[in-house]
């Protein structure tokens, strides 16, 4: 069912105030605009408006060759940059029939999970900033900085590294890589208790989060939510388990779920995911040989055979899928991205209406949308 697309003042109704929240509001994580009607502090109507960051990704990608597109996919969810490259690369690898060496798969997995931690740290910091706590923001960004430095050493850029490529990764990891990552993990594990103390265990946070913005299991499935949002509603759906890719089949990890579906559950799931990521990276580090091939044999001109392929991965925000249609030339006929934030954002009218205004901010930060990926 389509919801209303605008919020018009009701004639004769004077107790409702219509507010444009965004696109320049401090808590909209970029450029979301939500037109909301409030009665005092209670939200009566909410209509999200998106598209302020539209950059025409899918159309541009039709005019680019396959290796060039990888650069563009990075720019979708810029907070977890590297993760976005993978679904497209997997799809093209399938079309090309390229063998990926196991070491390359493991390296990719390590980076993938590092960026999950990085992205969740950004979410944690900005989410707590929305809830009024300034300090976790600086702590999380400081920890994320270490991940970005590790990435820069190997891949040459911090947020949008353009590092994965067909058949593996572009260059071998830096000699210090394994040491750095292990050091980061040790460091991060000493930091996690602080985050628990400042966020999850904080009674003020619990007062703000428990029972707020409850998303039922059915509603979450109906709206196509994915990622931590759906797992916090009790659905153990994780692409890493459902359709394993790269090195995930060899690695042991759990999919944390929680049945409540409130803001607290979404925060909790992301916390546990960071812990799971640490576990995954540790296993992968053990398995990865120090030297070896990092890239499979790929023809110099990437020309997949005609056909179509859909591959999905579990990025920090959920199910990111890419559908690639090839006509056998150097450029794809069509590339379509299925982005998780976009689907999760559809929950805004459901969750906002009836909530208090301050809750709306908490709900929005628990959905953790990134607008590069919503608008594409």
């Amino acid at each position, binding site marked *: 069912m389509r919801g209303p697309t605008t919020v018009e003042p009701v004639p004769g109704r004077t107790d409702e105030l219509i507010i444009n929240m965004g696109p320049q509001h401090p808590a909209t994580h970029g450029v979301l605009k939500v037109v909301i009607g409030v009665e005092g502090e209670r939200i009566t109507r909410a209509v999200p408006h998106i598209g302020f960051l539209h950059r025409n990704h899918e159309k541009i990608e039709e005019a*680019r*060759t396959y*290796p*060039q*597109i990888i*650069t*563009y996919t*990075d*720019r979708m969810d810029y907070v977890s940059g590297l993760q976005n490259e993978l679904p497209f690369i997997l799809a093209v690898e399938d079309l090309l029939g390229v063998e990926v060496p196991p070491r390359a798969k493991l390296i990719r997995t390590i980076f993938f999970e590092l960026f999950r931690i990085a992205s969740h740290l950004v979410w944690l910091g900005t989410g707590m900033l929305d809830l009024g706590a300034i*300090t976790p923001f600086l*702590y999380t960004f*400081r920890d994320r*900085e270490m991940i970005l430095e590790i990435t*820069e*050493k*190997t*891949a*040459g*850029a911090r947020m*949008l590294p*353009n590092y994965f490529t067909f058949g593996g990764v*572009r*260059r*071998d*990891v*830096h*000699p210090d*890589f394994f040491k750095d990552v292990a050091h980061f993990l040790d460091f991060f594990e000493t930091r996690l*208790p*602080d985050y628990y*103390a*400042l966020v999850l*265990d*904080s*009674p*003020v946070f619990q007062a703000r989060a428990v029972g707020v913005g409850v998303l039922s299991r059915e509603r979450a499935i109906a709206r196509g939510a994915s990622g931590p949002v759906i797992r916090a509603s009790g659905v153990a759906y994780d692409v890493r388990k459902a359709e394993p890719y790269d090195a995930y089949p060899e690695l042991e990890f759990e999919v944390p779920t929680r049945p409540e579906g409130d803001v607290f559950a979404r925060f909790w799931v992301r916390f546990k995911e960071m812990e799971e990521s640490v576990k995954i990276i540790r296993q992968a580090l053990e398995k990865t040989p120090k*030297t070896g091939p*990092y890239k499979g044999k790929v023809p110099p001109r990437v020309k997949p055979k005609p056909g179509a392929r859909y591959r999905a991965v579990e990025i920090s925000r959920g199910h990111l899928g890419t559908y690639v249609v090839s006509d056998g030339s150097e450029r794809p006929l069509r590339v379509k991205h299925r982005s998780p934030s976009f689907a999760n954002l559809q929950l805004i009218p459901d969750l906002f209406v009836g909530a208090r205004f301050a809750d709306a901010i908490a709900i929005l930060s628990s959905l953790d949308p990134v607008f590069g990926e919503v608008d594409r």
Partner: protein
Amino acid sequence: MSLFAEVWEAVKAVGAGLGAVNKRISEPAVTEFYPYKKPEIPPVSVQFLALIQNEDGTDRCVACLQCERVCPSQVITIERKRNPEGKGFVLERFDLDFANCMHCANCVEACPVSAIVTVGAFEHAVYDINLLKADKAMLDHIGHEAKTWYSPKFGVEIRTPDGRIEKAPPEMQPGGLAELLAEGEGGEAS
């Protein structure tokens, strides 16, 4: 009684939070003092791109148009003409619009002779965006200024104080160059 227990739990949790904050007071600040202390960025880091000229002042670039072809944002414009003496081509124009460059280093990777490279310089800030449209003179200039640069083919190279170009020692090299170094010195495209 449960109310008191709850309140006590809450007070303890707040106390834990306060403790977590206060214990950081003695930790050193991680602030980077940028203009006072310039950060050292790894050689593979994609910041400025540069055209490298050989020691004798000729272009390394052979005008093969590979970089123009792979650039995803299509900011490289090359015009070439046939080399009057000998075979191959020479550059007439090489423009690179840093304002639209995505710093993806696809061009660096594609270059067969390591003519276009990443250099460690990162201070591109200008007041007028048009000044970011670099032409060949500027790219050459950046290349001349650079002390070290990186390209996937040759790894990190350094310019010695007396103007020679040498391959950097292995400890300066990023990963994946072990096999390259094992091949020995064969890289100089002169």
